C-alpha cells in the first residue's frame, strides 16, 4: 500500500476535515473558498476557533494521515506526487490528497484511456436510466473509462451499465472513499471496487456534508475528457458538473429528452449553449476521437441462425412482439423460445415493462 503525501498536503487534508462543519453554512461559495490557501481559509471560515485551529494545523503529522488511511485500506496520493492524476492539476483547487480504494495503480491505468463522465438526475425516468446504461456499457466495451458520482439514478445507472458490460469504472464519492453514499449503494460500491476504483478528496470514514457534493462535482469534471449530462431539472446539480467541465476546457455533451419534459430542462439548456448532442455511444466516440475514428464494437452475432439474427435486428430497431417475430419468420412459441436464446447469449435483456432491448 503506497502512501505518498507531503507534509503540506497532509496538513491541508486535515484542515478540510477540521473545517467541514464551518464550510457548511458558506457552501454557496465553496469553489472560491477551496481556492484559498490554508491560512486564508482558516481566516475566512474559522470563526472564534481560528487560532486554535491554526495551532493544531501546525502540529499535524503526515504519519497520522498515513496510519489512518492504512487502517481503512485506503491509498493516498498528494498533488505533489507523480502518481497524482494530471487531469486534476487543471483545477484551480486540486484536491491536496486523493484517497483511493480499489487501487491507485488501477486508477492510473484507467485514466490513461479517454474518460467520459456521465451525470444526471437522481430521479431519472426509465428512458434516462436505459439510455445511461446502454451508453455507459457501450463506452466501456469500446475501452473508455466512465466516471460518475455513484449518486442515485443516473450516476448509479452509468456505473451499473459499465459493470454489466464487464468494464471498470471510476466513482468519485462526496464523503470518504470507503463510505457508500447513498448507503443503499453499498453493494454497488463493492462491485465498483472489484474492478474499478472509488476516489475522494476526503479521508476515510468521513460522512458526506452538503458542500462536499459541488466540491465532488469539480473532480468528476476534471477527471473526464467529456462530461455527458443525461437528464436533469432546471437547477440540477449535474449542471454544476457540466459548468466545471466547460470552465476547465473539457467537452460537454447532453442527451436530448422529450421537448416539454421537466427532466429535459438541464440537457436542453446545455445543448442550446453548444454542448454536443449525444444520442448514442458513437456520438461520444466521435466527440472524443473525431468523427468515425473509432466505432462502437459490434457484438458477435456470427454464429447465430438467420432467424435469430433477423429477430435481434428487429429488436435493435425497437420492434417487439409479433412485429418482431414476423420479421424473423417466427410465431408465438418459436419466437419466445428464440428470445430466450438471445437472452441467454447475452444479446438482449429485459428492460422496463419486460420489454426486450438489444444489448
Amino acid at each position: 500500500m503506497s502512501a505518498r503525501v507531503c507534509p503540506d498536503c497532509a496538513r491541508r487534508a486535515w484542515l478540510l476535515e477540521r473545517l467541514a462543519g464551518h464550510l457548511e453554512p458558506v457552501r454557496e461559495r465553496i469553489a472560491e473558498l477551496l481556492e484559498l490557501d490554508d491560512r486564508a481559509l482558516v481566516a475566512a471560515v474559522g470563526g472564534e476557533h481560528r487560532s486554535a485551529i491554526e495551532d493544531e494545523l501546525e502540529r499535524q503529522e503526515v504519519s497520522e494521515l498515513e496510519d489512518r488511511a492504512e487502517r481503512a485500506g485506503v491509498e493516498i496520493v498528494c498533488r505533489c506526487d507523480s502518481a497524482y492524476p494530471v487531469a486534476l492539476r487543471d483545477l484551480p483547487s486540486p484536491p491536496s490528497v486523493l484517497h483511493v480504494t480499489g487501487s491507485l495503480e488501477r486508477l492510473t491505468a484507467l485514466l490513461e484511456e479517454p474518460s467520459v463522465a456521465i451525470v444526471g438526475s437522481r430521479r431519472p425516468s426509465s428512458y434516462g436510466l436505459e439510455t445511461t446504461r446502454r451508453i455507459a456499457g457501450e463506452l466501456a466495451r469500446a475501452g473508455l473509462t466512465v466516471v460518475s458520482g455513484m449518486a442515485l439514478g443516473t450516476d448509479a445507472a452509468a456505473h451499473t451499465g459499465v459493470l454489466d458490460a464487464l468494464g471498470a469504472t471510476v466513482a468519485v464519492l462526496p464523503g470518504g472513499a470507503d463510505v457508500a453514499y447513498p448507503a443503499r449503494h453499498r453493494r454497488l460500491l463493492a462491485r465498483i471496487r472489484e474492478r474499478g476504483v472509488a476516489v475522494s478528496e476526503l479521508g476515510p470514514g468521513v460522512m458526506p456534508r452538503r458542500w462536499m457534493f459541488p466540491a465532488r462535482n469539480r473532480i468528476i469534471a476534471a477527471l473526464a475528457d467529456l462530461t455527458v449530462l443525461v437528464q436533469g431539472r432546471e437547477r440540477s446539480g449535474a449542471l454544476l458538473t457540466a459548468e466545471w467541465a466547460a470552465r476547465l476546457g473539457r467537452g460537454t455533451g447532453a442527451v436530448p429528452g422529450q421537448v416539454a419534459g421537466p427532466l429535459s430542462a438541464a440537457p436542453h439548456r446545455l445543448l442550446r449553449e453548444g454542448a454536443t448532442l449525444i444520442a448514442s455511444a458513437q456520438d461520444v466516440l466521435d466527440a472524443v476521437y473525431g468523427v468515425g475514428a473509432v466505432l462502437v464494437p459490434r457484438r458477435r452475432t456470427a454464429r447465430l441462425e438467420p432467424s435469430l439474427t433477423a429477430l435481434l435486428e428487429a429488436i435493435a430497431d425497437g420492434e417487439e412482439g409479433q412485429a418482431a417475430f414476423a420479421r424473423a419468420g417466427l410465431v408465438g412459441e418459436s419466437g419466445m423460445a428464440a428470445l430466450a436464446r438471445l437472452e441467454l447469449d447475452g444479446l438482449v435483456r429485459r428492460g422496463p415493462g419486460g420489454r426486450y432491448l438489444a444489448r
Partner: protein
Amino acid sequence: MLAQVTTFAIDGVDPRQVWLEVDIRAGLPAFTIVGLGDTAVRESRDRIRSAVLNSRFRFPDRRITANLAPASLRKAGPGFDAGLALGLLAASDQLPAASLEGCAVFGELSLGGELRDSPGALAVAEGARRAGCTRLIVPRQRAREAALVEGLEIIAVSTLREAASVLAGAPAPPLPRAEVEPAPAESAPDLADVRGHEVPLLALQIAAAGGHNLLMEGAPGTGKTMLARRLPSILPPLSREEAIEVTRIHSVAGLHARGLIQTRPFRAPHHSISAAGLAGGASPPRPGEATLANHGVLFLDELSEFGRPALEALRQPLEDGEVSIVRGQRSLSFPTRFMLVAATNPCPCGFAGVEDRCTCGEADLRRHRRRLSGPLLDRLDLLVDVRRPADAELRGPSHVSSAQVGERVAVARERQRARLQGTGAGCNGDMDARAARHTAALDGEAEAELARAYTEGLLSARGRLRVVRVARTIADLAGSERIGRPDLLLALSLRQRLAQEGVGVG
C-alpha cells in the same frame, strides 16, 4: 309435552347437526330460546309466533322453552325458524310427534307463515343424509339445490301450513321442475373473441394445462382482464364432486339457488378487499373469495394495489389448498383450491416500456417492485407481458377457440395425472422440488440451457424450479415424454424476472 326436530347449522361451509327441542309446560305464557343462538335466533320467537298464528294454528298460551343442542355450538341465522315452529306444533299436539322422526327441517319463516329462501340448503341436505335422515323439508326456492344429494326425500314447501300437512300425511308437492340448464350462452367468454395476444394466449393455455398460477404485466387497457376472464373456458369441466362442492360453497355464501353449478367459478375481488374478505374470516367465519374461487380462478387485478395483509393472508390458501380459521377454541377449514391469476401494471403510471410515456422515477419503480415482491410471487410460475395488439392483428382472424384449447389442456392434464401418481401433486403446478426432479425428465440440451441460465444469474434457485415445472407442462402440451430444448427456452421466456430486473440499477 316435548318434541324434537333435527336441523343443521352451517359451520364454515360444513353442516353440523342441531337438535331443536321444544317443551311446553303449564306456567305463565312465555317463549324462551336457549342454546347459544345469535340475535337472529332470539328474534325468531316473534317470527314464529306470527307465522304460527297466520298459518291458522294455535299458539299455546303456556310456558314454552326451546333448546338448540348441542349447547356448546354457536348458532347463527334464521334457518332454525321452520324447525322450531314445527317442533312447537308437535309439542302442542297440532302435529303427530312421530311424523318428525327421520325428518330434517330447514328454512326461515316470514310473519305470514311462508318459508323464505335460505342459503346453504345443499350443505344441510348433505348433513341430513350423513345423519341418516330420510326426508328434508326445505323452502321451495332451494329445492333443486337440495335435491342434488341422492338418497334423501326432499320436501319442497312454500308455507308452514304446507309443511305441516305433508308431515300429517298429505302427499308431498312435486319438486319444482329443473330449470333448463342455460346452454353456454353466446356471450360466454371464449378465446375465439381474442384478436392478437398470441403470447398471452399461449401463457393462458400453459397455465390451464399445468395448473400454474399466472402473472400478467401490461399497461392499462391492454386486455389483461379480458384474457383472465377466458381462463375458466379452457379448464377441464368440473367433475360431479367438484361441482357439488362449488355449489355448496356458493349456496352457503348466499350466492346461488338454482341447481348444480357447472362452470368453474371466476372471482375478481376489488383491490380494497380485506384479509378476511379474501381468505375468509369474520365471526361467525364466512368463506372468503379464495374459497368462493375453489376449483376455479381467483383473479387479482392491480396486484400491487392490494393491501399487504390481504396478500399475506393468501399464503396459506395457496400453499395448502385450504385455509383454517381459528375463532376462540374452534378451528374451521375452508377449501381453497383455485388457480391464481394476477395482473399488474409494469410501473405505477402503467406505461413502462411504452415509448417515452412512462413518467415514473427509479424510486417509484423500486417501490412498485417491492409491493409486488414477497411470498406471493413465489407461487406465480408464469409471467407474461401483455401488450396492445397492433391494428393489423385487431382486424385479423382469431387464433384459436376455447374448445380447441380445452381439448389440448385436457389431454395434457391426463398425461400429468398418470405421471404424477403417488407424488402428492395433481398437476405440474403442484410439483415440489422432489417431484420435479423425479418426473421432469429434461433431455441433455435442455439440461445444459437450464444450467446456463442459472449460472448466468437469470434464475434464482426457486425460479429454476418454476421454470422446470412450466417446461414440463409445455412438453406435456406437445405430447412428449422428455423436456426438449425448445420447451425449456419457451418456459424461460415466460419466467418471472428477478426483482431487480426491469429497474435501472442492479
